[in-house]
């Protein structure tokens, strides 16, 4: 979709005009009769944001915003509100009408707030500094969590509305955690894993056993420690509810915004990992999805999808949305070998039933090179959007699970699409 500036200004003017009308109407109605049972709740305005990377060397790009889903060919230069972002290949998360990025526009690590206003412009908001920042999650308007490399088993809490850090939760303050660590042999200790997710009214924090003599990474030096732990914390009290664990699988590896954590309509949480963290010591690529059911305090033992078993070994999949009992992935059709076939356009969309059966390739969508962390499939308004990055096409395709229709959603001209997001403007009362 190419929007020229004049058209854009007209649209903004129209939007403002409609907003004024809406507000005036709302005030008029409310002033006439506060108890009017027929009051129509104002409808939230929707915006769509696309994060694109424009330079690999500096890992910078832009946030582009549109008030409708992008279509046609997008020229990033036609977006007057385009805003420079750093760490472009590690997208943050969208919450309400805000995007929380993992670095400031100048590359300083931390949480940078970008607010998409109803007029389509972007406002660069406040910044929380976090050196070694790697992941975050947001529970609600006032509570979010992040962790950074230097924080050593201490989850940091912040308020996303006023953009301030509010405290921390030290996992080592929980006896259940220290018991695990105390039982470890010398030279092994606990450390954060990659996953952190606020969902289902709880906070899920992954931790694992690290080898102090192995660069602080998990290794297969002691296979007894090849365990994935998930601390489940009550956000109201910051107390530990339970520790879920899975043997033989040491990392879920997933940035929160990387389409690797997905929640079904029922509230079940699906965690997908791309690789076994013992890759350094002989482990390998492993696209695998595990699940914690809504309200449960442990992993669902009956659920374990491993693409190495049902697809190809090392397919480097991007686990995606869960919709109507199906999970949507993007999987490489050959084992990924870094430095060899990384750039081959052979990553294709697949769908599989949540019981692990019926893995099917979705036809009609061209192959893509190895996707970026955040460019896995996303679900927006009932459609599954797949990013395609190749020498001949950079953009998104959409798949309609209901009809099976496949369409070219939009192309991006001269930049690499990283993440497509849907934003909801706060309702003006």
């Amino acid at each position: 979709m190419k929007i020229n500036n004049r058209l854009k200004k007209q649209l903004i003017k129209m939007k403002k005009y409609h907003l004024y009308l809406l507000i005036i109407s709302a005030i008029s109605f409310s002033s006439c009769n506060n108890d009017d049972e027929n009051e129509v709740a104002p409808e939230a305005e929707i915006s769509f944001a696309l994060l694109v990377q424009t330079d690999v060397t500096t890992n910078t790009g832009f946030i582009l915003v549109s008030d409708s889903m992008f279509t046609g060919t997008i020229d990033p230069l036609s977006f007057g509100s385009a805003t420079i972002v750093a760490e472009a290949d590690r997208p943050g998360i969208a919450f309400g009408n805000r995007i929380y990025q993992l670095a400031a526009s100048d590359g300083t690590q931390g949480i940078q707030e970008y607010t998409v206003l109803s007029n389509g412009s972007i406002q660069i908001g406040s910044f929380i500094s976090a050196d070694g920042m790697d992941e975050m999650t947001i529970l609600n308007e006032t509570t979010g969590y992040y962790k950074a490399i230097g924080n050593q088993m201490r989850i940091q809490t912040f308020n996303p509305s006023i953009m301030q850090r509010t405290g921390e939760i030290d996992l080592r303050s929980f006896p259940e955690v220290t018991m695990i660590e105390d039982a470890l042999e010398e030279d092994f200790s606990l450390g954060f894993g990659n996953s952190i997710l606020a969902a289902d009214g709880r906070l899920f924090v992954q931790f694992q056993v690290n080898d102090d003599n192995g660069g602080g990474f998990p290794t297969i030096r002691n296979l007894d420690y090849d365990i994935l732990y998930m601390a489940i914390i009550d956000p109201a009290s910051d107390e530990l509810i339970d520790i879920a664990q899975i043997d033989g699988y040491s990392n879920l590896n997933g940035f929160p915004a990387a389409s690797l954590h997905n929640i079904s309509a029922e509230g079940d949480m699906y965690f997908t990992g791309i690789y076994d963290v013992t890759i350094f010591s002989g482990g390998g690529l492993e696209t695998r999805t595990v699940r914690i059911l809504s309200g449960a305090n442990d992993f669902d033992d009956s659920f374990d999808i491993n693409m190495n078993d049902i697809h190809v070994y090392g397919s480097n999949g991007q686990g995606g949305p869960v919709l109507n009992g199906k999970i949507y992935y993007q999987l490489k059709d050959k084992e990924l070998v870094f430095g060899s076939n990384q750039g081959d356009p052979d990553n294709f969309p697949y769908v599989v039933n949540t019981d692990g059966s019926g893995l099917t390739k979705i036809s009609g969508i061209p192959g893509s090179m190895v996707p970026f962390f955040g460019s896995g499939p996303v679900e927006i308004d009932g459609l599954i959007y797949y990013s395609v990055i190749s020498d001949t096409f950079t953009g998104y395709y959409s798949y309609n699970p209901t009809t099976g229709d496949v369409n070219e959603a939009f192309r991006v001209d001269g930049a690499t699409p990283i993440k497509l997001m849907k934003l909801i403007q706060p309702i003006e009362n």
Partner: protein
Amino acid sequence: MSRGIDQFLLVLSLIWCCQFSYAQNNILDHRITISFNGQSVKEALKMLEKEVDCYLTYSNLDVDLSRKISKQFQNVSLREIIGELWGERQIKLRTKGNTIGIILDEEKSSPRQGNLFGIITGDKGESVSFATVAIKGSGKGVIAGEDGIFSINQISAAKYTLAISSAGYEPKEVLVEVRENQTVKVEINMSGAVSALDEVVVLGKSVEQKKREDPIKIEVIDVKAIQSQSISIPQVMNQAAGIKVRQAGGIGSPTVININGLQGQAIRIFRDGIPMDYMGRAFDINILPVDQVDNIEVYKGVLPVDLGADALGGAINYVSKGNGQNNLSASYGIGSFNSHQLNLTAHLNIPQTKFFTSLGSYYIRSDNNFRMDVQIPDPVTRNLTETEIERFHDGIRTWFAEFSGGVANTKWADLLKFSYANFDLNRDLQNNVFLTRPYGEIFETERSSIFSSQYELNRRKNTLKLFGAYSKRRTVFDDTPKNTYDWFGNATPINPESNEGELERNKSRRRQNFKTWTARLVYQYAFREGLSLNFSHLFQDERRVGRDDFYVPISIGEQDPLSFPGTYVKNISGLQLSSDIGKRIETIFAVKRYGIFAELATQRLNELSSIDPVEVSNFGLASSLKYSITSDAFFRISYERTTRIPTTLEYFGDGAFTLSNSALRPEQSHNINLGFYGNLNSKKNKIDLILFYRAVEDNVFLRQFNIFYSQFQNLDDARVWGAETAVKGELVPNLKFQATLTYQDIRRVNIENPGERILENSRQPNIPYFFGNLGVTYKPEKQFLNGSWQVYTNYAYTEQFILFPLPKELEPPLFGNANEVQGASIIPTQHLIDVGLTYNPSKLPIWLNVEINNALNVKAFDGYRIQRPGRFFRIKLSYRLEPK
């Protein structure tokens, strides 16, 4: 294969040098009859050559060629006739074929030498500084000192014509007679400044000026003229057009040099024509004091073959101190931030011998604890607040000493020198690149021992220069903290059992040992004046091995990558023809060959192994043409097709998170320069104008490779065009000025990745593209407090530039508002003013200098957030003893 060719060339050259024999031959006994009737000795020698069909070689300094001779020789041997022509001078005759070498018998003739001592003053009795004094017809000369004094020692007793020239004065010729065992004193008075409308006729030009007027564009920065000042080399270089030196902190901090749009690895640095690699960091631009060099040559575009290197975009050559004359120079500087600098250089020609000894040394220490603004997070909210802090862990302590000894001006060597140097560096590291993390214990050290030898022989048409060096360097990078630090220097102990580093996740103490062999051969054959052929070959062999004391293998059985030995061998050859065509045109044409062989163990993902050795060979060519309009005005155009071979880091990675890439292609560039040099509106004011163009292919960049690793890759091309100008002159008597302005447009082109094509033709980010400088020096004629004074000031301007790339359509225009691009990170416009004052008591060889840098105390940045010091002071006391 290429190594074999290189070794063969080396051996061949050495054999050629040795085969010049002085064997006796009967030609000398050839008896002839010849008459000289008032011919000069020079003409008589030519008659002899014709009569005997031989070729006579001799030094102009050994005989008075203008002496008239009238004598008849009847059946006299050639040996005797030549002896007669040389008069009382004792000579030795050597033959090879029909060539006869006439050599002064040093043992018998050495007493027939004398010295020349002179002082040059102007009309009003003022000293004429740095005048060029040339002995006509000999090709030899000296530059007078700042006080107008010069001396030429150990020259044959004879009559000479001295040609003296200095900017602003009428050139002058003076006849002098050097007498045996005497020091002849000569006072030379140069008449007033050249009138504005007169044609300047400079019979002799300084070496520096001659280089400036070379067909190859060389910016010669006369450091000797400003050695009394407290100035640093980056400051000196920033005063030149087309050059930008940026520092990341105080003395010793990382530096980026940009010449005509290209920077980093594209620029090579030399010392006396030898690539600096063997010196380690001893001559780093951010350390080296101005006292250690006579001048700095900046090559823009084309490199002559005797600078054997694979520079892509230019080079810097430090010309060491010393013209072979006795001297002693000492200076001590003290300044803000507890900075101390001590220099001692000396040269002694041992009397009655050909031996000499010399010393070059410096000691530097500084706390570099200037104040700067940093973004400090609130301990609770982690919101950033700009706070002024004092740097507390950025100190440097370093010393260097080089002792040399040898012989000069013998019959078999103009110079044979052996040197031994030692270098020691301790430097702290204060922060990470983005200034978000302070460090309090990280430091690095370097210890070097450097042996070198130098041989030079200039005999008539042949010039031979040989250089060899061996250096051992040990470097340590230590990140083994006991504490963590905040920006105020407060320490918090780290758990002793922790393996935590300040810079990296784990502690490290990386030790590396380098052994470097360097050899260079330069041979020049002059067919005639203005036509010469140069051959140069450079050989470098660097071996590296090391270890990390705290290396933790991340897989079983893994070996520390630093412990694998690495080899990097470089051979660069060049052949250059320099010629003039008529009086107005000078040309240079050169071909070069670059070759490297490299072998190193490295890491490929989770596999550590030795990758295939890299062997690269490439050719380049260069051509330059100068057209003189007058003796002081000319056009110059040059072209070079040049190559930069990737470094070991770029080929092999760092053994950690930078992967190897043996498929890297060398960067290549087409460099074109077009320039004009000449008078502006009067003879005193000169303009130097250059247009430059660079077309760089296969730029090497470090790119994210996957989730963990980065890799150097060939990406895109770059196009650079720009213009630089320098205007120098005298505004009013005794008030000199120099103004420079540079614009360079550096653009990414031919972007291959479709996901980046929006940046096609975009400006290369994070590089200044418009900058200038204005310097004014006033030296009043009248003395005050029994001494001379000099006041100077310098204003430096750098236009704002942007940290990250922007599509061309979004670029702010020159002087535009870069803030209009939302989220743009800007390095703001910089205005810096330095002022200084130098006092020289008339009766003492002492100079006292006071300098205030950043006099307006403005916030200035060389890089994003990289703040320069505010106002600071330096005082320097210099003592220079030169021959009287």
